[in-house]
């Protein structure tokens, strides 16, 4: 185990703590947006996918990288857009209901 590995472990554990402390304070009201938000954020694996797709390791690796970039991009784009769409709907009573158009029923 190299020193870098140990630092990585520190980062992981500390981030886990931060996550635990923040997320236990998210109200049940916002649990669905929380799921889609964390999903969008974990699409950060796109940075790994970008390197694989662009590093010219081999043709197979490039194709795998391309599919990985595609999947991660779906989550980046779709994830942040849908989270925003959901959060836009949460309004307080006193907020004027007319300012934000309601989602059209589908």
């Amino acid at each position: 185990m190299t020193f870098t590995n140990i630092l990585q472990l520190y980062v992981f554990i500390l981030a886990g703590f931060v996550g635990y402390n923040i997320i236990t304070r998210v109200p049940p009201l916002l649990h669905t947006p929380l799921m889609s938000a964390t999903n969008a954020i974990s699409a950060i694996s796109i940075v790994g996918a970008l390197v694989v797709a662009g590093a010219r390791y081999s043709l197979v690796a490039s194709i795998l990288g391309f599919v990985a970039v595609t999947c991660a991009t779906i989550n980046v784009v779709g994830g942040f857009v849908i989270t925003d769409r959901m959060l836009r709907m949460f309004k307080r009573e006193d907020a004027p209901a007319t300012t934000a158009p309601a989602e059209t029923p589908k």
Partner: protein
Amino acid sequence: MTALPSFLLETAAAGDASGARVLITQASYLVSSVFFILGLKSLTRADTARKGMQQAALGMLLAIVGTLIDQRIVEYGWILAGLAVGTVIGWPLGTRVPMTAMPQRIAISHMFGALAATLVGIAEYLHHGSPEVASLDRVQMAALGFEVLFGSLTVTGSFMAFGKLQEFLPGKPITYAGQNIVNIGAMAGAVALWVYLIVDPTATWAFWTMTALAFVIGISFVLPIGGADMPVVVSLLNSYAGLAASATGFAIGNTVLIIAGALDGASGFILSIIMSKAMNRSFTNVLFGAFGSAPTASTKTATNLTVKSISAEDAAIQLAYAGKVVVVPGYGMAVAQAQHTVRELAELIEKKGGEVKYAIHPVAGRMPGHMNVLLAEANVPYDRMYDMEEINDEFESVDVALVIGANDVVNPAAKTDTSSPIYGMPILNVDHAKNIIVLKRSMNAGFAGIENELFYDEKTNMLFGDAKASLSKLVSEVKTL
């Protein structure tokens, strides 16, 4: 200076333009990590959430741009193609999918996330792990193996969950004799192969066998889990997708991946625990219990009990003159897409001078927070939505509790009947209300296949029919009063 991470040492050694590029990339990762954490923190309050998540999206953009200048990237064709195809698919998934389809939308996005992590892991293994190269040390192999193992089972597991929620796969649990032994055995085998790989990273056969096994495990673990247990499964898969991303970070030495994955992993884990608690069941029970596979006959049969049904007219009179109404939505409201009509009815009751609140059980619906999102979509202000703990003591003073397509979460058997499969599950105290109106399609038992005593309570009136049609009738009746 030996304490510096390797990338900074490289930078110091390079001392030229490429070193500067590494620094810019790392700086972008640091900023995006901070934005991610701030974004999640903003979700602790509904009024700050939107801005915080937009900031997180900016963080993502920064990380992507920061990566594109990485000097390992020598060709951009595949990247641009992937970004383009992903955007074309992702955009409608973000803008078009209706709120009622949110559980399956979330499930399929876990599949995409896990697939990305898995494929990165496989490509890295192909490049670094083959016997000719063999440049993987044991720690990297452990991380890479974990990433592919958890990533693969999340891919197929999420797809199964998606199928059950989208209902092209049967929602009922699929079980066979010895299922748990097979599942646990398969998992033990996959873990054994993982350990073998750590000892010998060049054992490609072990890598591929483990990957194949993990894909099968994902399917076989979700098969026996029923629709009502999906909130736990979806949360758990959320956690696995995060852990797989984090492992990717360890394998390729990327800190922002480790951080974002840890955040996602923690979130999914906490949600699954909350959901399990709200069903009064342990994790292991959800995963291995196959709830509802053999509906246990409740000791109390419904034969000598009668239900009172009520006409829409009479129900409308009760609602129109009630001082305090609490709406209890369940999965049936989502199925009937009745949330807009619910809000319309609530506004009419308020016009008549009544007060309307919404009582939301943590596991109502098919995913955490499902009901809240649907009601918010229908323009119900979020300060009218109450969690179970917040509202449970208020039911004594409630004139009419309006139960819309909810069943198990309001079943008093959870409190009184020790032989009931849901005994001990915290429920909404709807039975304490002065009057109860239940909107229900028919007298079929709920998802867990359990009789609900609430429906036979003398304070209860049943209004049969499709939830949306019944509510529309109520709306027009209240209007005439």
